């Protein structure tokens, strides 16, 4: 997927993944890659700033945990994030439906 297009929906995709339950950064990125079937070919390091931005906006919260002797940062969606995810999902589906109408079925 084109970089600029992906950046516009990356936040929504991350919120959707984290909405399933608390996850650490590596797990979120793996899940993003799995769900997108490799279409989101962005450098993995660029996902963390997006996570930090969502946290700063109050859509995610994070905390440290220790798993098998390793410190990991866990992320979870907030109520505000759930509301934002709902709005962004609705907008995306409306946009996708409009684009499908414009482009026609392949």
């Amino acid at each position, binding site marked *: 997927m084109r970089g600029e297009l992906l*950046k516009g929906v990356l936040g929504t995709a991350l919120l959707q993944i984290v909405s399933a339950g608390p996850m*650490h*950064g*590596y797990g979120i*990125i793996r899940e993003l890659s799995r769900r997108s079937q490799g279409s989101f070919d962005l*450098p*993995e*390091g*660029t996902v*963390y*700033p997006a996570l*930090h*931005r969502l946290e*700063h906006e109050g859509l995610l919260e994070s905390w440290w945990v220790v798993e098998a002797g*390793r*410190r*990991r*940062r866990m992320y979870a969606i907030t109520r505000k994030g759930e509301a934002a995810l709902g709005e962004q999902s609705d907008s995306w589906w409306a946009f996708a439906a409009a684009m499908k109408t414009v482009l026609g079925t392949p």
Partner: protein
Amino acid sequence: MISADVPEITAYLAALDTRLALVGGRRRRRILAEVEDHLRQAVEDGVTAGLDRHTAAGAAIDRFGPPGAVAGRAVGRHWAVRAESWRRSHPGRATALFAGSCGVAAALSAGVAIGAGVFLLLLLARPVLDRARATRLEAGRSAPDRTPLEAGVMLAGAAAGSLLAALVAPAFVVATTAVTLPGIVIVLSGGRTPWQAKLRARRLQHPWAWGATWGGLAAATALTAALPLGTAIASALALTAMHGYQTVQAAADQVLRQPG
């Protein structure tokens, strides 16, 4: 720790740490810890999949991205977040800071222009005044070394110059930093700040207001930049006229003194 076992990860983290110099210690430690955890987990997964440790580390680092790009985004986010947070919590102060900085920069530029004009005036006037004094002495009239007006102008010029020298350098640095900081934030953040998105949206919604604003700023900047040059040109023209007048007057005196 894997990072201690795998030199590629150690080197990557060191390179990233160097490039995160602008980020505060607490946040930098958080970023480095998250990156290290990510790379360690990726190497473990690679080893589980059958790769040797070094190959797995290379692949993990390739997927993660160059340290410069990762740090660039982190630094951009860091400064953008802080600036945006401050701007949102103190909109009045942010507006006042920007407007005040512009005013200070313009006032300082005008002060420099006036100082440069006074200095140029004195510099170019010196030969003319000396010649006038010599003419008066040749005519047998009194000619003090310094007229009260000239001494006053020189004293005021020296005081203004000293004051400007004391104030301009630090104030100019502060003013220009304050004015250019938003631009720096936008550059460091790669143009992805909510602030820039808002600016873009406003530009599209109000193209005329946007153009008028930037046109006014450009005109003010041009005017400010033209002040020193204009002052210098005006001073030079005035002194040239004075010099021409004195030359004509001296020639006329000489003709009138000739007998019969």
